């Protein structure tokens, strides 16, 4: 290393004396701890929303069971071609006892228009 290069190095080393104020690094640690706590609190909150504590888990199990029961009812409801063959499992059809006037189901029924 030549002399001017050594002198440059000496001068640049003076930058070591640029230092933050006293107590800066104690405050730095406190800031780091507080940021970490904030992050962990928000992460913990998100986790509890997704995976849940004991209370949330009960709701998830309940909702799951209700959904499974609903699915079972839908699948077992007799509305397929096999169900028609089995008379005992035919759905009950309610038929009206009196014809309904102007009904779409009985278009041939006479229509009487009252005269004044």
């Amino acid at each position, binding site marked *: 290393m030549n002399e001017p290069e050594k002198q440059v190095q*000496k*001068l640049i080393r003076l930058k070591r004396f*640029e230092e933050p104020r006293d107590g800066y690094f104690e405050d730095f640690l406190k800031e780091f701890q507080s940021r970490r706590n904030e992050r962990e609190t928000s992460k913990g909150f998100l986790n509890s929303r997704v995976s849940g504590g004991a209370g949330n888990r009960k709701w998830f199990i309940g909702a799951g069971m209700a959904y499974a029961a609903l699915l079972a009812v839908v699948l077992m409801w007799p509305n397929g071609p096999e169900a028609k063959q089995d008379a005992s499992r035919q759905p009950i059809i309610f038929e009206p006892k009196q014809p309904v006037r102007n009904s779409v189901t009985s278009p041939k029924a006479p229509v009487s228009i009252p005269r004044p």
Partner: protein
Amino acid sequence: MSSEFENESPTDADEVLVSRAQSGDTLAFDQLVVRYSPRLYGMIYHMTSNKEDANDLTQDVFAKAYRSLNRFRGRSSFYTWIYAIGTNMTLNFLKKRNRRAAWSLDNLDSGIQNDEAMVDLAHAANPRHQSDLNELQKKLNEAMQSLSNAHRAVVTMFDIQGIPHAEISKILKVSEGTVRSRLFYAHRQLQGHLEEFIK
């Protein structure tokens, strides 16, 4: 140092602290923060010449290291690992910041008066050498900021922080030859900027 460290041994090796931190001991990680924040802050500060940016970036570096700690396998020292994170984040930051930022410098420590280089300057015949410390600080920063980010990184680590070539090459993931050549060219460029202070 915080009273939280009363039960901590000041001589705990990095590996011990890292291992405890990986098991969820936040106090162990805090000790690593205490141990390395001055050096990391210094590196980032000399790279950015802005104390607010240096503070935010150093915080971000430790936050990233804390999140990634479980991926640290100990193939390098913790010091090299966190320095590599710090250097990469700073270089990325500088690419985005470009030339927008203004300087915001830390004060000079009174110890500078006793430094060999400072004593030389003070005793030199040239009245320009008697220039006040702020002027010198300004010139040094101008000279540093005239370097490319890659050159400034090696000057910061080698000349200011005294990190050996081999360690810098691991941090920057370049060969030792590249570190030496970057230093050589950086010194040449700095000579041009600091001519008036060189005998």
